[in-house]
């Protein structure tokens, strides 16, 4: 038996609308219906102009982040059954400029991702790119960063972060988590470069450990803990720099 759910979506069409407005839909759902499926159902049968991003439907691509009753979530990982007896209000991901309907402009986040160099920078004595040699890594070395490598760059932690909300210069949860992830990788030699970003006021030190990023992360990455660990690294780096000449 299909139940019915009232879904209110915040609409904004820049070529027509002066400001965002609400549009409500009724959708039928079963136990398996995800919010993403419900939105596609709306787009297919009720409102073909509704815009939202999606791709994989399985919490891997990180495209369908949106606010569900004020909480940032992946639409594909949110099920209507969990809202039975309530209504759902869908808004674009908070803390990002809205482009259209549920589509936000993530360029600030993407620029930060590029800035932190989220890839392995080989150490001098390790195999360089193109060299046909193996990287050796033990399970224990893998465990140091494995959890933080689960990030899918969906931007949900940025929508959750009260510090990013007031200061867009803040590198933010995902970028700082990925810095930690690569710095702790035994194959990586780029820590010194990345610590320059971590050590700034806009690096780890803008975080006041609210922890809502970790609560909202759909992949269980725990960015708040990565940032706290980053603070320890940055504090060590600070002490070392006091005894170094020319810094």
């Amino acid at each position: 038996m299909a139940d019915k759910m009232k879904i209110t979506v915040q609409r904004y069409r820049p070529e027509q609308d002066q400001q965002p407005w609400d549009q409500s839909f009724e959708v039928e759902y079963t136990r398996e219906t995800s919010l993403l499926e419900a939105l596609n159902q709306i787009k297919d049968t009720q409102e073909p102009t509704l815009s939202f991003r999606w791709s994989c439907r399985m919490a891997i691509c990180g495209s369908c982040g949106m606010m569900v009753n004020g909480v940032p979530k992946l639409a594909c990982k949110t099920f209507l059954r969990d809202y039975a007896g309530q209504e759902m209000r869908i808004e674009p991901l908070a803390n990002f400029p809205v482009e259209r309907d549920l589509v936000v402009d993530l360029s600030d986040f993407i620029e930060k991702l590029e800035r932190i160099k989220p890839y392995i920078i080989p150490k001098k004595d390790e195999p360089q790119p193109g060299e046909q040699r193996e990287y050796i890594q033990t399970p224990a070395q893998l465990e140091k960063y494995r959890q933080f490598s689960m990030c899918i760059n969906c931007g949900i932690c940025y929508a959750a972060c009260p510090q990013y909300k007031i200061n867009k210069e803040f590198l933010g949860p995902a970028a700082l988590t990925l810095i930690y992830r690569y710095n702790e990788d035994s194959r990586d030699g780029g820590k010194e470069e990345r610590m320059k970003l971590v050590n700034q006021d806009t690096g780890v030190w803008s975080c006041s450990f609210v922890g809502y990023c970790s609560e909202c992360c759909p992949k269980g990455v725990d960015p708040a803990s990565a940032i706290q660990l980053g603070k320890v690294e940055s504090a060590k780096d600070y002490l070392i720099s006091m005894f170094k000449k020319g810094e």
Partner: protein
Amino acid sequence: MFRKDRSDEPIYWGLFGAGGMVVAIVLPAIIIATMGLNHSVLDTAMFANVILSPVFSLAFIGIMILCTWHALHRIYHTLHDLTIHVGTLHHLLIYGLALLISLAFIGCYLIILFKNLF
């Protein structure tokens, strides 16, 4: 905050962290230990003598200073939640106050020390 390339926050965060340990572990331990004192063995006057001895009072002053930095650092970062956006003025006022209180504690310690010596 006075340097662009590197935050000075590690200093305050370090004191905040040390203060947090003191508030969470050392202070309750002292309170419980004091409550468990056997008053027939150690009366109030003797207790005061122990507390006011140079070693104990130094530890005590250290504890109080760390608590001060912990509390004021927390207030500094809570200001943002109260919609006050912190700038250099807030920084100087709050950490200046922490420094003043710390100096006052050190002053108290020196007085105790001199009283003990002479």
